[in-house]
């Protein structure tokens, strides 16, 4: 598919506000390049993993921020580093394994050797061979470290930033979103349950929109509507940080059904029953403090999921304007009983690339992208609940999406 590339950012989005989103915002390669630069490589915190993925000194995992490959590695002192996966010599992405444990990081091309902090320890033939060749006299190892990113670790969750001017992580989230973050990640030891990975052929922001959109789950997702996991009559709360870039959708499952919200909703199945009822064997946990669901979007690249007993982080790795990789990391707590672990893993059937709820989110994102690509003059409508940006105590609003685009327009100067 060929898409026109803008050379004039000022005309891309002519209207004011953030309730009508022009198609090029999802499709234009020049806009995407600016997003990488200003958002993913700019003063924002990007999720890169959980501390339990790199439990010991020398343990590493490879991931990406935007399109740049990075290595998350624990050093001998136990601290977490995020290093760009690019040899300072000839740019080799020397790390090809997804995870492992190493004494040092060695680029196989010319055996440049780095420690866990990314400092260059040595290069072969630095002083030449038998007086011949070698590096110039002014070559200094300390000038050739791996690019070491800014790192924030909070209660077991790791974020990295290419910017060393980004505000502290806690300020970046703001108090309201931080409280939701800490509700799940309160310092308890985590246990890794595993990964699911999918490539969704849609713009990365469509996934952020999807989890800032409390309108669709009670309509698209039969399992949510029918079993009351997400429905318009559920008590709920939508909150944002001051910038409107992050958000939390918090809600409580209804045991009873308000006919007004299932009337005419074709996805509602009054008589649907399960053969295997253990899928909905939901057990209230004390730390929930009420809500059965809390979906947190941390701009730009992660969604934190608590959906009843199922917990995951969902990382967004953009691959061009028209696709992104979506990495689900499911986890539990070290204090979980074996029954609770089994329950979390069983409820994961609702989520992920094969999930009875989430699989259709990927599908609708793909077809939205197709629609944006067919006509650059189109603008998406995002006016449920008004045109403004404000917290809400109900679900019948797209205010969180407007919040994200209000911030996006500021950062992008579009």
């Amino acid at each position, binding site marked *: 598919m060929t898409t026109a590339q803008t050379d004039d950012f000022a005309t891309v989005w002519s209207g004011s506000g953030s309730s009508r989103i022009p198609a090029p915002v999802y499709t234009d390669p020049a806009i995407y390049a600016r997003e990488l630069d200003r958002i993913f490589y700019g003063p924002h915190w990007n999720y890169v993993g959980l501390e339990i993925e790199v439990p010991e000194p020398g343990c590493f995992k490879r991931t990406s921020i935007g399109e740049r490959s990075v290595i998350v590695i624990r050093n001998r002192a136990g601290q977490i580093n995020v290093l760009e996966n690019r040899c300072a010599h000839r740019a080799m992405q020397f790390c090809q394994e*997804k995870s492992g444990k190493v004494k040092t990081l060695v680029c196989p091309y010319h055996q440049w050797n780095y420690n866990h902090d990314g400092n260059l320890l040595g290069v072969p033939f630095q002083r030449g061979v038998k007086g011949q060749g070698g590096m110039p006299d002014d070559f200094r190892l300390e000038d050739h470290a791996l690019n070491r990113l800014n790192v924030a670790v909070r209660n077991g969750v790791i974020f990295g930033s290419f910017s060393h001017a980004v505000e502290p992580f806690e300020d970046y989230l703001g108090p309201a979103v931080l409280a939701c973050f800490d509700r799940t990640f309160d310092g308890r030891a985590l246990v*890794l*349950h*595993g*990964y*699911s*990975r*999918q*490539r*969704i*052929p849609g713009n990365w922001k469509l996934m952020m929109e999807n989890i800032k959109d409390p309108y669709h789950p009670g309509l*698209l997702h*039969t*399992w949510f509507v029918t079993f009351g996991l997400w429905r318009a009559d559920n008590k709920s709360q939508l909150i944002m940080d001051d910038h409107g870039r992050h958000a939390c959708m918090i809600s409580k499952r209804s045991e009873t059904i308000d006919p007004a919200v299932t009337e005419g909703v074709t*996805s509602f*199945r009054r008589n*649907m029953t*399960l*053969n*295997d009822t253990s*899928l909905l064997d939901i057990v209230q946990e004390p730390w929930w403090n009420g809500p059965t669901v809390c979906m947190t979007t941390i701009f730009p690249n992660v969604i934190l999921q608590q959906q009843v007993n199922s917990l995951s982080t969902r990382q967004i790795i953009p691959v061009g304007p028209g696709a992104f*990789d979506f990495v689900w990391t*499911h986890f539990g707590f070290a204090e979980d009983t074996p029954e609770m*672990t089994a329950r979390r*893993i*069983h409820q*994961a*059937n609702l989520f*992920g*690339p*094969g999930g*009875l709820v989430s*699989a*259709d989110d*990927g*599908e*609708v994102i*793909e*077809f939205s992208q197709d629609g944006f690509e067919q006509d650059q003059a189109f603008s998406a409508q995002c006016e449920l609940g008004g045109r403004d940006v404000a917290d809400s105590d109900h679900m019948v609003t797209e205010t969180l999406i407007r919040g994200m685009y209000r911030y996006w327009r500021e950062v992008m100067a579009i």
Partner: protein
Amino acid sequence: MNMPGIEQIIALYASYAACLDEQRFNDWPDFFTSDCVYRVIPRENHDAGLPLATISLSGVGGLRDRVYGVTSTLFHAPYYQRHIISLPCVKGADGEALLVETNYLVLRTKRDQLSEVFNTGRYIDRIVMTDAGLKFAQKLCVFDSELIPNSLIYPI
């Protein structure tokens, strides 16, 4: 138990593939024992001993729920599947069960699109003889594919 011959095992896989590729999803649970385990697992989880599966069903009731879910509740683009299953490798026996592994390749063809490799991996199966013929007591679909192309809807 009378151990089944290799021809019977090959015939089981052939009819399993035909059932799925002909989209007779309501017949799919009939290939399993009532207390079966069916899991679709990313290889990285399997190799690392991590318990998460992309799809994890237990008991034939769980399989029927999944069939209802994919045929009646999930919105998705329609597609054809084509299973290419290798000759079975009988690894041994465990009590009444035969331990059998086969490689599989699932091609996906969406409407108006070119055919593509959708998912590839190996089945790690436990096959038992019942009064109703050979059944899977366990089918683990451990897939190499590092990324699922958007969503995984139908059984594999």
